[in-house]
């Protein structure tokens, strides 16, 4: 063999060895969830595009719960069940907290902190509107006409 090929083979062996004993985040799903839960909303959504595993973890409501609580102050023990009933934390972030944060960042209201109770109120109105949406217009505007995402839920 040529000396370059020999070198390459050696490197190849090294890489395989490293892969066998190396740590992969994908093997530790809970740890992955813990890390993803510390991201901001947009980064978390982007992270969900990495691979199927990350997408599945990124969809977990517990991950979004951590994100929501970090950005909106408030909440009590009973909050989780109420949010779950109204549609889940991921939806709460997508519809209420995310757009609100964007709006606050854009305007000069950056000093104001978003309260969870206000977000939940808005969320409950959205849930209510969806309840009655069967016979009424399907494109009834969501309460926050800040952005109109395509509804993939």
């Amino acid at each position, binding site marked *: 063999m040529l000396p370059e090929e020999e070198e390459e083979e050696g490197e190849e062996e090294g890489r395989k060895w490293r892969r066998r004993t190396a740590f992969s985040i994908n093997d530790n799903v809970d740890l992955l969830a813990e890390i993803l839960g510390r991201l901001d909303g947009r980064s978390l959504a982007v992270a969900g595009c990495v691979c199927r595993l990350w997408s599945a973890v990124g969809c977990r409501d517990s991950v979004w719960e951590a994100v929501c609580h970090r950005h909106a102050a408030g909440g009590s023990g009973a909050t989780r069940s109420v949010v779950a009933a109204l549609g889940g934390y991921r939806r709460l972030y997508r519809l209420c907290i995310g757009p609100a944060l964007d709006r606050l960042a854009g305007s000069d209201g950056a000093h104001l902190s978003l309260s969870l109770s206000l977000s939940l109120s808005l969320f409950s109105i959205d849930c209510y509107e969806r309840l*009655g949406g069967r016979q009424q217009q399907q494109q009834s505007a969501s309460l926050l006409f800040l952005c109109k995402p395509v509804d993939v839920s």
Partner: protein
Amino acid sequence: MSRSDLGTDPYDSVEDDRWIASASASRGEIDSLLQGAGYRVCSTDLRHVAIGLEQLESAMVGDQCVASSAEAIHYNPSDLTAWVDSMLSELAPDPHLPRHPHITATANTWADPTQQRPSLHGLENHHQHRSVPAVSLQSMDEEEDAAIRLVHLLVSCADYVQRGDSEMAGSLLGQTRLALARVNTGFGIGKVAGYFVDALCRRLYPPPLSAAGGGGSAANPEILHHHFYEACPYVKFAHFTANQAILEAFQGHDRVHVVDFNLMHGLQWPALIQALALRPGGPPLLRLTGVGPPSPDGRDALREVGLRLAELARSVQVRFAFRGVAATRLEHVRPWMFQVAPGEAVAVNTVLQLHRLLGDRASPEGGDAAAAEPIDTVLAWIVGLKPKIVTVVEQEADHNKPSFLDRFTEALFYYSTMFDSLEGGRAGGSHRGGHHHHHHQQQQQTVAEAYLQREMCNIVCCEGAARVERHEPLARWRDRLGRAGLRAVHLGSNAFKQASMLLTLFSGEGYCVEEADGCLTLGWHGRPLISASAWRADDDAALPCDHQTLLVLQDHSSSVTSGSNNVVDGDDHHLRQHSVVRNNDTGSGSSCSRV
């Protein structure tokens, strides 16, 4: 389709006030939005009409001597297509008229000449700047002068109407329409003036098939209200502020009863249900009684709303019961219909409703009339319910003055500010989303304007019992509610913070929340437009409730039905026990409620 497809606003017309009946628009589908505004145009003709209107405007604005053509024959503009064609053929026989692909509007401001109001310079950034063709270039001063002249004409016309001189009023209306042509009717004073001109016209020459309430449009009031809800923050502000007050008043009570004087779609209540679900100590048993007009088409709209709310309450595990009370007029409602149980904490919620109970005010010197108005009866039984909180939200304007001219002028400035806020406020959100979103907002704004137009029409065209939009300012409400035995409850800083946050999230700059003596007002550029306040029954002044009195009041007038729409969710047992108690006490199966 949306209004932006048209070149200019359909109010841009040179027109006398008499409608000459003409053949109605025939083939093709009639555009429904325009139909709501009173115009019959086929959807297929819209593009043609838009181009025609542009040409018409350039022809008329550029040509000064068109202004006073007294002997021209005028066609019914509600058939827009034919009208445009006829006007064009009269005014612009020249086929080489310069074609302007863009609308000939200049971004301008309207400075209010008669009152100290800041000019709408903030709007300049939000208007789409369009190309200005050389032919119809108008200077800023001309535009302002035209606007001032327009306002003067409108007010003089109203003056003649008040005096009963319909001839002079009619001719002034004609001049007003001409003046309207010189002002941009896409926004600002031009837009609102167009509606007022129509309303004055309707008052002078009532159309043969007069729509109820003088509103004109046959659209469902709930849908109009819903669009108004989405398009601007006034109703949201009302709901959130009232809910905050109710929540605070309900602290420590485990059986609560909310009475809503105008249920509509019940949009106020999901937030309260959610907040009660999360309150420390757990949710109470919530009963909601919603008052609303009876449904025309046999559906029980109140019950449907109740079912939806019950479903929401069930999902967040709040024990909930709903009752609907259908009444055509608020004064027909009686307290026994609510069936308030003993030991319940009662909240009465009236958002933009109490003013409907007012009557004509006497003379300005006499102050409030001694004659009993429905408001006094209703306030008396509200106090009799011994509510923990009464939330009152009203328009901040005096549209109940005895003189028509005063009302008209006040309404003109109030609604022009409202319209400005609709226009300017929505621009705050329009930089996000795409073209589709923008269209949607435009559509929503148009329907919201239709909602406001109904109110305006009622103020201008109706009198007596038909006039229900009798807005009065907060100061007068304070007196009235105080005399009825209610004491003001300060709304607190939580409500103020919440309102400020709400505005930051939803609307463009220009809205302002202010606190006035414990009440909150929301306004546009310093002019308060809506006020929210909270009250409680004064313990000494509360009337002792009388069984006898209530039995006497129990009339079975056909206009009211107390639906037994108890959608009981959860604690059935609890409520059944209540009725057992009631029956034992009264000895008979009467539905008299102990208060």
